[in-house]
């Protein structure tokens, strides 16, 4: 494995992590609690896409080795994740008045409910999207990079989604209201912003991006009921590294944590005896160090 290939893998994995961390950071700052069900929201998106793709099929042509039907499934997966999150917010979180710690514990229960239902429906085994695996792109192989068109599609789609979110946040009314609410919910409320509606939109956007991230994770690796929960701590590491509440920080954090976790083999190349099996552990230790040294993260403002 060349370093260039590790960087390429890091880029792909980062794209998935970024999609997950944006949603977690948005919900952390606006709904004001650490949502432990966020990883399982990604799983919900992935399995919804799996079902949709099985139903609609390829739909004729394909882009970057991915049939049109897959993109339909991607949209449905993101939408389903958003719907599930909205229903959960309406049925469970909204009526609770138990502080952020109580909500945190509740969200663990929600995560188990999502995962339990998925496992009842689909079994505990690994599955894959019914898409033919591609050969690595020919002209990149001489550089030691083995990536497929699917991987390119993941990175491009994630970039489009993140770009869309940037436009939404900076240039639309909803985006300004969301930023105002993330900054100071009380102030936003007395300025006449309907905070409940904005909270709902936050869930839609955060869970939708997570759902899309879940679909890509299923394409990059495999689908399993535990896939989202296993990624959750890495997403937390990304969000904390970037700074909780800062959406651009979450993007940066997701990128860095994704890179670090895929670049772990470099440590052995330079003679540090820490193997690939500790890539997650490195991310968690970085997370704890950031919490200690700079709890506001890279992009966070001192509060």
């Amino acid at each position, binding site marked *: 494995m060349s370093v260039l290939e590790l960087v390429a893998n890091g880029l792909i994995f980062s794209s998935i992590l970024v999609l997950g961390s944006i949603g977690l950071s948005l919900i952390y700052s606006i709904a004001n609690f*650490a949502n432990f069900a966020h990883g399982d929201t990604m799983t919900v998106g992935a399995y919804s896409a799996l079902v949709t793709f099985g139903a609609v099929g390829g739909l004729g042509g394909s882009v970057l080795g991915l049939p049109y039907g897959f993109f339909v499934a991607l949209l449905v997966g993101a939408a389903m994740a958003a719907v599930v999150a909205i229903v959960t917010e309406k049925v469970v979180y909204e009526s609770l008045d138990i502080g952020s710690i109580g909500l945190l*514990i*509740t969200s663990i229960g929600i995560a188990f409910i999502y995962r339990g239902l998925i496992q009842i429906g689909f079994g505990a085994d690994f599955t894959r999207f019914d898409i033919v695996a591609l050969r690595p792109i020919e002209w990149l192989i001489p550089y030691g990079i083995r990536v497929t068109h699917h991987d390119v599609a993941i990175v491009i789609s994630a970039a489009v989604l993140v770009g869309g979110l940037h436009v939404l946040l900076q240039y639309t009314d909803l985006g300004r209201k969301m930023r105002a609410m993330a900054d100071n919910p009380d102030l936003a409320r007395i300025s006449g912003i309907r905070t409940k509606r904005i909270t709902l939109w936050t869930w839609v956007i955060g869970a939708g991006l997570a759902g899309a991230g879940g679909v890509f994770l299923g394409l990059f690796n495999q689908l399993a009921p535990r896939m989202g929960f296993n990624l959750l701590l890495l997403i*937390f590491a990304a969000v*904390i590294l970037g700074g909780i509440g800062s959406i651009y920080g979450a993007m940066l954090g997701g990128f860095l944590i994704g890179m670090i976790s895929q670049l772990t083999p470099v440590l052995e190349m330079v003679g540090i005896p820490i193997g690939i099996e500790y890539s997650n552990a490195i991310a*968690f*230790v970085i997370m704890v*160090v950031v919490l200690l040294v700079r709890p506001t993260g890279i992009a966070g403002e001192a509060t």
Partner: protein
Amino acid sequence: MSRLDNWVDYWSDLTRAEQGVTGSIALFAAVLLVGLVTGGLNPTYFLFLVGLAGMYALMSLGLNSQWGFSGLINFSVAAFFGIGAYGAALMTSDSAPILGGFDPILGLVVALSLAAVMAVLIGVPTLRLRADYLAIASLGLAEVVRLLVLNERQWTNGSGGVRGIPRFFDGWPVLSTFPQAMPGLEIVIILGSPIELGTPFYQMLLNISLVAIFVGASYLVLRRAHRSPWGRVLRTIRSDEDLARALGKNTYSFKMQSFVLGSVIMALAGVFYAHLNLFVSPGDLNPITTFYVWVAVILGGSGSNRGALFGGIVVVTIREGTRFLNEFAWIPFDTAPLRLLMIGVLIVLVMKFRPQGILPPQRELIWPDAIEGSETEPERHTNQQPGGDTNE
């Protein structure tokens, strides 16, 4: 007659929740008894379940002393449980990759010391953090511990686990041969389904007495500690840390002491598990254990030790009860995810309808004579604290 009146008085003194819990425990015990008598429930397996319940109760007591009394959100329960189990296993097993072959008592001491050291190591960076950061950080560090146990094969034998752990009482004068020495009994209550009590039954009986000693000792130590001035400082920290600091308490040091105490009790559960199961593997450090224990504590009522005991029993009932469901053919799926679903629903229901738990702390934080004193001699309130210690 007067004895009956006492019982009636006692019953009407209980809160409705207490009456409900007492009633359902009685009902549950009756169901188990019927199961035992009719031979539907194997007595050895039943004792195994009691042992598991005791193990969860121990972990719940440990977590309760961290979360319930000091407000520390510790999501690394599974790591401390695993350290206890692996510490005992590596010290005592004859096939351990390092150490091995020592006396279980020595294993116990080493495992608990190891857990205390690790509690300090995890506590030093994390206990200064805000509550929700502590949750995430401790879950992350617990994963680091699990990955170390899984991958450092030269010490832990990796995913193969450690076998050959002796029973706790092996090598003791009378107790080591007690199960073999006891006569095999066969009790026939209902014709056709005799209840056999053989060597495994007596072995399990020894295990149960071990966990009963562990739980009893921990319960007494915690109850004494939490009624002491030390416990009062912890409760002050939980409700208002700034207030405790303003009163001149070093809250960080108090939190560390509480964290170490709770973690050692969790490791005690791990030591018991190693000698009950006679095999430990990295799967025992799976974070799901942490969440089971959390369910037990919030269900029982944060800060309530008897609530923690009750929660431990409920969790084992869910964990093992869903295994029975697999025997019913009409359920079209594996029941393992059902366990997950039930735990999840239970968490949400408790947080929604009874966030204080089913048995919230009532009188257990106060000396009993303090209550009686205040009822009979209310004027003592004015100048001195009844039963309390004034030299705090």
